[in-house]
């Protein structure tokens, strides 16, 4: 994120810019709450995944990817349930460090993504 400051350096002279180039944060849809929480912990075994956003989400055109402790990845099924602003799924977990990368399409056409790192502890 702080790299924008160096971008500022180049741009700030108000010169020589033809394109408003930027590493866009794709921050349009924001994650309001999640289970598991960002940086939180979960119990080993079957677990529900729940993500809630600030805007209506196109579920069919969104994706959840789980990264397991061994760095292998798995696309999580998005369940067709809940209100328009939530994504639900389920996973089976063993102890270790995990991460869920989410990418959502808001109904107004903005694609946003983010990560939810979390730790799974033995029961």
């Amino acid at each position, binding site marked *: 994120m*702080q790299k924008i400051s160096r971008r500022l350096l180049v741009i700030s002279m108000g010169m020589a810019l*033809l394109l408003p180039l930027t590493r866009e944060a794709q921050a349009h849809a924001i994650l309001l709450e999640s289970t598991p929480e960002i940086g939180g912990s979960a119990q080993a075994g079957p677990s529900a995944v729940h993500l809630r956003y600030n805007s209506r989400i196109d579920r069919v*055109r969104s994706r959840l990817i789980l990264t397991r402790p061994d760095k292998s990845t798995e696309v999580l099924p998005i369940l067709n349930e809940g209100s328009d602003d939530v994504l639900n799924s389920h996973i089976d977990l063993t102890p270790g460090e995990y991460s869920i990368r989410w990418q959502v399409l808001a109904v107004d056409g903005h694609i946003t993504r983010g990560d939810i790192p979390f730790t799974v502890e033995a029961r």
Partner: protein
Amino acid sequence: MDVNLLVDLFGYLSIIVHGCTIVAQSMTIGGALFLFILALPMASKIGPQVAITTARMAAWAAFALVVCEAATVALQASVLMATVDLSLLDALGATSAEAGLVKIGAGLVLSALLFAYGTAAPRVPVLLLALVVLVAATMTTHAAARLDDQGVLLAASFLHQLGAAIWIGGIPAFVSALGTVHDRTGWLAVGARFSRMSMAGVACIVVSAAAFTFYYIAAPDALYGTAYGVMAMAKVAMFVMLLALGYGNFRAVERLKSGSDVAVPRMKRFAEIEIGIGFSIFFAAASLTSVPPSVDLVTDRVTWHEVVERNAPVWPRMVSPQHDVLALPALQAKLDAEAAAQHADHADHAFVPGAGFLPVRNAADIAWSEFNHHWAGVFVTLIGLLALLNQGGVRWARHWPLVFMGLAVFLFLRSDPEVWPMGDEGFFESLRDIEVLQHRFFVFLTMAFALFEWRVRLGGWNNTWAPKVFPLLTAIGGAALLTHSHAISNVKDALLIELTHTPLALFAIASGWARWLEIRSEGRLSRVAGWLWPVFFLAVGLILLDYREA
């Protein structure tokens, strides 16, 4: 192509394309309204040429709208196909893509009608198609994805775009009309009618902006505490500039009524600047659509105390930290040492451009960045001072564009320490990082236009376009800075940095257009503008000198 890189590319390309889309959309609708409300009904007073030109402009704008919208849909569909494994048909089934396709269809027919029939294009179908474009555009605004108060927000979004189209979208046709007619009766007719149209447009904008403030911003602290609020404030600042110029034109029309046409050249120049500032607002608006409304950000807002604390003047940082203590070089050295210990063929890279992850960063990186900004501030302040001296008659100070060359070299060396020539990353390899690519591009442009303006200052270039390069690039640069000024959503430090971006951008825009006014006008107005633009430049330099990241 790497999927993460693709999403990054989509993120910033979509803002650029969206800005172009708003410009084209507003010129299409504004042009059509100008044609049917002003040019055709007043043809007996102003002649047929104004309508002919307006119809052609609207036709081209509609065609540009089709191209921009097609690019938007194609970008979005390609990202969805690559990242969510959708078929083309499924990707095009998204609500926003469907709205885009409707816009493309309506724009195509609109363009064809105006090209084929010109001023004889049927009024009702053209206006209905313009309405379809507006409704479809409304379906890709924040309002379309809201969970609450959606009806009133959709109505406000519609009204906002309509107002922008009537006023700002109509200004290019207005400028063209002022240049086409050559007598007081014609100027008065065009000026008075467009003045009333503009007032209607302003009313639409004010009413809808009030609704946005109530529903999207909600609290005064969100104005400086969130990216949405800061960008909205920047739009308001430019809106006020436009109103001031519009008031100048209103006064010119009043003078025309009293029999004097001395203010007509000023009216033309002001209208030209209105186009520039108006389009800057459009790019800011495009950027605004990519951040969440303030009301959704309930944590990590910047407080007034933090704003004051961060911007309290401190002595600029004139000494740089060593390159090897920066986070990436330090991490790379560690990885190299580990690889050597394990007798590996090659070490991992500390940072892989385009992999979708932001590089690590430590206190030395912050110091490095502040040092860069402060020295850039020295360069820019020097440019402003020399330009002022030159304005005051000091002949040798006309070489001030050469200072830009020094700045460009400085930026080339310092802006990306992880990249060649300072870092380990190869030149071509690093261009996969969008930001590095952008930096290199800007350095190249800086060199080119510094040489260009220097040549202009030395004299001997008698063409009329050469002196316009500098003000145009300065103003476009300011607008560009505004569009990217909120690359991060809800991180306090990032927003505090953004709070510095906004005045920089506004001063750059003001400086560029003041210089434009100096070139394009005569007499007192030109002289005043000639003193103003270096002062604005100086302000940019001083803000940079006080820039801090911690």
